[in-house]
């Protein structure tokens, strides 16, 4: 039997690994308990592609500069002000030193991927994506002596007043206990527990797809909140986007995204439009469509486009449904044909001059006298073949989490938990109350993972 670790880290994603490497470098004996089996290690982090990084001049793959204030402004815009300024600025400021640290720990970057040029200045892309990052970190962590147990989900943390005295986990069907000096919680949100989502959101959540790992079921989060550890974030909220309706229930990841909405009309099960498809460029509207679709009957939407738009967006993972007539498309998509024809006719009639159509800019090519309107890229759906996609709500993460301070330390009953820190998704609600900024999840995990590792090691040594 290996000696008891100084620090147990719950979770095996980005935040956990950053904490583990930092603590091991500070001399602590570290053990990671990861719920997933090895091929699925790394949680949602394995699905990521970049992190958002402040920089005062060109840095690694990043061009130009991205100042603390600009970064913070961007964050305020998407969170509508629901941001903890101290913690957010801390994350932003420290993101700059993260990039070289990540490289030193094995992460390699690549230039902004084709189709994502808009992020070339702000976001550094991982070569090979998040799984490449996770693999590199596991290698580095193991070299530093970190011990990793797979298929070892933690079930309970035992408190004595404001200290964790025991960690319970199962492995090979048996319950095990460890009593480390310190614990770091980095086990993500609860979005994979559909029952919990349903309790929080309502019955519609049964039809949601989970974009990431099936292992983030919030077991540790629930256990801690039940015992009175301080919580933060709206329990009823989650980050959700509209994805390909044919995506797998879990773990579909990035490829299930669909970028065709701005060039389409989107209808519900009754073949009725329900929202302005051309409100803004897609990256800015990606997130609201998750909610819009969730509010429709059966939580499903149908995108209809025609031949002239089919090459205007990133290719989809599954080929679109294709038909020579709208009637045939309606039949293939199980929509009422007469209703769909009527909706398309009304839409087409409301379209006007399309000569200034421009696929990548707000072109003002809009409908007149139509509710809801389409305010940009409104071109009539006329050219066969016609194409369709179904849309469903894909949940990225939940906001409910553990409240932490600048040292990533958790608290219980208004005093700190003496030996417990939290990092990553599980405490991201401490910073973001709503909304999301692309690449900020990995920034939070890296910054607070390193802080938690440092603090836990200081305590344990």
């Amino acid at each position: 039997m290996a000696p008891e670790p100084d620090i147990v880290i719950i979770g095996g994603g980005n935040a956990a690994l950053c904490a583990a490497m930092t603590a091991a470098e500070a001399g602590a004996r570290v053990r990671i308990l990861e719920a997933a089996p090895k091929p699925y290690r790394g949680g949602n982090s394995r699905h990521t592609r970049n992190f958002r990084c402040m920089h005062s001049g060109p840095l690694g793959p990043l061009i130009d500069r991205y100042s603390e204030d600009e970064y913070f402004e961007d964050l305020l815009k998407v969170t509508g002000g629901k941001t903890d300024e101290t913690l957010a600025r801390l994350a932003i400021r420290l993101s700059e030193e993260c990039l070289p640290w990540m490289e030193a720990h094995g992460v390699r970057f690549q230039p902004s991927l084709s189709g994502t040029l808009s992020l070339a200045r702000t976001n550094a892309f991982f070569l090979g994506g998040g799984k490449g990052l996770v693999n590199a970190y596991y290698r580095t962590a193991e070299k530093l002596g970190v011990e990793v147990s797979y298929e070892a989900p933690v079930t309970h943390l035992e408190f004595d007043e404001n200290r964790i005295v025991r960690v319970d986990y199962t492995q090979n069907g048996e319950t095990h206990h460890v009593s480390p000096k310190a614990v770091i919680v980095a086990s993500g949100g609860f979005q994979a527990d559909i029952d919990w989502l349903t309790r929080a959101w309502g019955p519609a959540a049964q039809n949601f797809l989970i974009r990431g790992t099936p292992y983030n079921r919030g077991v540790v989060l629930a256990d801690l909140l039940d015992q009175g550890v301080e919580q933060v974030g709206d329990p009823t909220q989650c980050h959700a986007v509209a994805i390909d309706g044919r995506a797998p229930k879990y773990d579909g990841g990035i490829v299930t995204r669909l970028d065709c909405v701005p060039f389409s009309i989107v209808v519900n099960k009754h073949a009725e439009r329900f929202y302005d498809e051309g409100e803004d460029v897609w990256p800015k509207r990606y997130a609201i469509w998750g909610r819009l679709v969730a509010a429709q009957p059966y939580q499903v939407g149908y995108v209809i486009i025609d031949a002239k738009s089919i090459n205007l967006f990133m290719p989809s993972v599954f080929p679109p449904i294709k038909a020579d007539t709208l009637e045939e498309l309606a039949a293939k998509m199980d929509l009422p044909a007469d209703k769909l024809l009527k909706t398309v006719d009304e839409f087409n009639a409301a379209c006007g001059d399309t000569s200034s159509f421009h696929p990548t800019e707000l072109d003002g090519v809009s409908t007149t006298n139509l509710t809801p309107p389409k305010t940009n890229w409104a071109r009539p759906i006329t050219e066969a073949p016609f194409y369709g996609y179904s849309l469903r709500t894909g949940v990225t993460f939940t906001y409910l989490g553990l409240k932490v301070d600048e040292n990533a330390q958790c608290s219980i009953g208004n005093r700190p938990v003496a030996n417990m820190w939290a990092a990553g998704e599980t405490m991201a609600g401490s910073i973001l109350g709503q909304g999301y900024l692309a690449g900020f999840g990995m920034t939070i995990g890296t910054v607070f993972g390193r802080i938690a590792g440092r603090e836990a090691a200081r305590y344990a040594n």
Partner: protein
Amino acid sequence: MQTDLIQEARRQAEICNACRYCEGYCSVFPALHRERAFSDGDITQLANLCHNCRGCYYACQYTEPHEFALNLPKALAEVRHDSWKSHAWPQGFATLFDKSGVAIGAGLLLAFTFLFVLAQALRPESGEGFYAYMSHGLMVAVFAPAFLLPLAALAVSLRGYWGTVGGGSLAVSDIWDACRSAGRMKNLEGGHGDGCNFEDEDRFSHARRHFHQATLYGFLLCFASTSSGTVLHYGFGMEAPYGLFSLPKLFGVPGGILLCIGAAGLAWLKTKADRNLGAPKVWGGEMAFVLLLFAVSATGLALYAATGTGAVGWLLPVHLGTVLTFFLLTPYSKTAHGFFRMAALTKEAASKRAAAI
């Protein structure tokens, strides 16, 4: 070509095209991302661009047990192997690809016996070095056709390949591009310069790249050695044996050593790597090919070392037997990959140039 193999590679390529996370690893992804739909020719071209560095397997979040079951290195390896077969000329020899191990074994035995008997029967009256065992005229009579005919067959194959992948006209710069890429083994560098994944799962290393370089340059040096010998013989009337400071030896000895090290290294790496990330059915044949390369260089060096001893009498047909087997099987064995790879790299350079205009 086998449509099920192409279809499987296409299914995976479509997933990659929606993902793009591996864009930085190699030439395959930028080429893939230029297309929206993949014809059979496109898939064949992507397959021959792939160097099986495996970076995109270990970095993929969709490998089994995930239902998307991505294993692009394997899917492309199977199409690649199949494309060599279906372009082989004459078609009747295509099945040799699937039986490389047997073909090499049988080839060696036959070539050795043939040369040994020939050498015994036509042993020259006089002659120095190995010409004491086999006359220059006889060697040329055997090896000139054994070298030129396979090259001609390969040229027909490559023309077919060029048609399949829709290759158009070429600029000199495209060929230069391809040579530079192959010369550096850029596609085994991994984009970040840390090398590729092969012998130890997701750990990046240059081992495979370096052993492959040694093999390639060793082979080219050996080739230069033979060519310079031919030039000396015909151009300057200088006949073998050559001294240590002659061109054939200055090319041949380091070349032979490099080829030995490279082939042995590649064989060793092959035993460590996961067979299921290549085309598992041809693993044995590929191994036999690497060992044949090793045998070519090792017997060549041994022959040199044995100069002046009686061992030359049997070492010579052994060495020449390995060389003959290697030459004859060139269009129907892994040797062909080098030629198809150059064609694919050249086509990619031309496509990149066209896309940039």
